[in-house]
C-alpha cells in the first residue's frame, strides 16, 4: 500500500526501529570489522544506537529535522571512533537539509541523503570505491534522486536495495582508507563494516514504512 510520507511521530518510530535493528545486528557488524579492522564497529554502533534510543525516548520533537539531529548528536557524543564521527555527521548533515519539515517524503529523503553523503565525504575524505560506508551511502543517495516521485515506502525500499547492493559490491573493492588500507589486495572478499551498517539502517527504514 502506497504511503506518501511519514509524519513526525512516525519518523520518530522509524528512527527508533533503526536503532533497535542496529543494536540487534551487533554480532554481524563485529565480525565484519574483525575481518578488516579492529573488531569494535558492532559495539560502537550498539553504544551509539542505545544512546539514540535513550535520547528519542526521553525528549519530544517538533519536527523531522530535530529527530535526525538528536540521533546524530547522540551518536557523535557517545560512540567515538571513526563511525561515531561519521554516523554522527551523517545524521546531523542530513538533518540540516530538512529545515522546518513536518513530513518525511521521498523528496526529503533525497535531500537528507544527498546532504548526508556530502557531509560524510567531507568529514572522512573517502570517495566511492575506497571500500568504506560511502560505498553503500553514495549509491543510496543516487537512487534517492531517481525515486523522488515515488511514495516514501517505495523510495525507501529502492534506497535500501541500493545500499545493500553497494555493501555487496564493497566486497570486491581494495581498501584505500581506514584501518583496512594496509591489507591492500587482501581486503578483497569481505564487505566493509560501515557499509553493512548503512544497509541495515535503510533496510530498517524501508521495513518501517512498509508496515
Amino acid at each position, binding site marked *: 500500500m502506497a504511503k506518501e510520507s511519514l509524519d513526525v511521530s512516525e519518523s520518530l518510530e522509524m528512527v527508533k526501529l533503526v536503532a533497535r535493528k542496529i543494536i540487534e545486528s551487533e554480532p554481524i557488524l563485529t565480525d565484519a570489522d574483525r575481518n578488516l579492522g579492529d573488531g569494535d564497529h558492532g*559495539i560502537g554502533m550498539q553504544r551509539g544506537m542505545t544512546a539514540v534510543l535513550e535520547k528519542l525516548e526521553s525528549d519530544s520533537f517538533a519536527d523531522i529535522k530535530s529527530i535526525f539531529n538528536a540521533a546524530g548528536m547522540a551518536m557523535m557524543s557517545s560512540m567515538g*571512533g571513526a563511525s561515531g564521527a561519521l554516523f554522527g555527521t551523517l545524521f546531523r548533515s542530513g538533518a540540516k537539509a530538512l529545515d522546518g519539515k513536518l513530513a518525511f517524503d521521498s523528496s526529503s529523503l533525497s535531500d537528507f541523503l544527498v546532504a548526508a553523503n556530502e557531509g560524510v565525504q567531507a568529514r572522512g575524505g573517502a570517495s566511492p570505491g575506497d571500500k568504506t560506508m560511502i560505498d553503500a551511502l553514495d549509491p543510496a543517495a543516487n537512487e534517492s534522486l531517481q525515486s523522488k516521485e515515488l511514495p516514501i515506502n517505495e523510495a525507501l525500499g529502492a534506497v535500501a536495495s541500493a545500499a545493500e547492493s553497494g555493501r555487496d559490491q564493497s566486497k570486491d573493492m581494495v581498501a584505500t582508507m581506514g584501518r583496512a588500507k594496509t591489507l591492500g589486495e587482501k581486503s578483497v572478499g569481505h564487505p566493509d563494516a560501515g557499509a553493512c551498517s548503512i544497509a541495515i539502517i535503510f533496510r530498517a527504514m524501508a521495513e518501517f514504512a512498509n508496515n
Partner: protein
Amino acid sequence: MKKLINDPLKVADELIDGLVEAYDGDCVKVGTRSIIKKEIPEGKVALLIGGGAGHEPIYHGLVGTNMADGAACGDIFAAPPPDIVLEATSAISRGNGVLYLYGNYAGDVMNFDIGAELSEEEGIEVKTVLITDDVCSAPPESKEERRGIAGLVLIVKMVSAASQSVETLDELERIAKLTVLQTRSVGVSMSPGSIPATGKPTFEIDEGLIGLGMGIHGEPGVSEIPMTTADDLTPQMLDLIFKDFTDDSDVDDLKEGDEILLFVNSLGATTMMECLICLRKAKEYLNKRGVRVYDTIVGPLVTCQEMSGISFSITKLNDELKRYWDVPCESVCYTKL
C-alpha cells in the same frame, strides 16, 4: 579466558576512575572521561593527548608531572568523542593555546578535529601534531599516513618536557613535529587481544605465523612471516627501522656515533622475559653499528588487552631532544628520575 571486570560495557569508565585513583590526587577527572593535571600554571602552552581505552597504561597514564596536561579518553579501541575532547581542552587551556598530540587513526583525527572546531568556537587556539611512527604502515614518501604505535611514549615524554618551558604554541608544534620525525617503530603481533564487550579476539593468526607490522589494534601489517626466535626476529625488525631512516630523505641515516632512545614494548601478554631477551639482541645489533643507546625503556606500556607481540621504537636524538629527555617526569605509565 577470565577477565576480572564488572559490566563489560562499562570497562572504559571504570578503568578511568581507577586510573585517577592511581594518581593519588595529582590528577583529576573532568567531564565524561578525561584526566587532567590538578595544577597547570597560567599561560602554559597546554598539551592534550588521548585515544581509545584498552591500551593501558597509555594514553591517559601519560598525564602527570612534566608529562601531558590532559588526556581525552574514548571507549575501548574507540577515539574519544568530540565532546570529551572539548571538555579536556577547556579544562587544561591556560590562555596560550593547546597542542593535540595523538596517534594517526581516522577515528581519532575526525573526533579530535571536531573537538578542535568546538574548542576554537570557544576561543581556544588549537594545533594538532599526529603521531606516525609505524614504519610498516606506509612508505616514507607518504609517512604522514602512518599509524601511531608505541613510539608515542618517547614522543609524549619529550614533547611534555618541552611544553613546560616553551613560550608559544607554534614552538611546541615545531618540537612535536621534530620529535615525531625522528621517532620510528616496527612491531609484530603473535596472538590477538580481545574486546571486553564481546570477548572476541580482534583477529586470527596461524600458530606458526606472526604478523610483521601489525597495528596495535590488530590492524593488518605488511606480511605474515613464520614464527621464529628472538635472535632472528630482532635484527629483521631493526633493519626495517634503519632502512626507513635511510630511505626517508627528510632525515639523516642512523649511523655510527648517533645517539638514540630505545624502547622495547610488549603488547600485553608478551612477558618482560621475552622483551629483555630481545633487548639483549637489539643492543648487540646497535653496538655492532656503533649506535649508542642514550636511554632504554622496556615493558608493557602500549598494550592491546591480552594481545602478544613486541615492538621496537627508536628516537634519534640531537642536543635539543636530549634536553627534553633528561627532564625528570612522573606518571602512571612512565616515570624517570
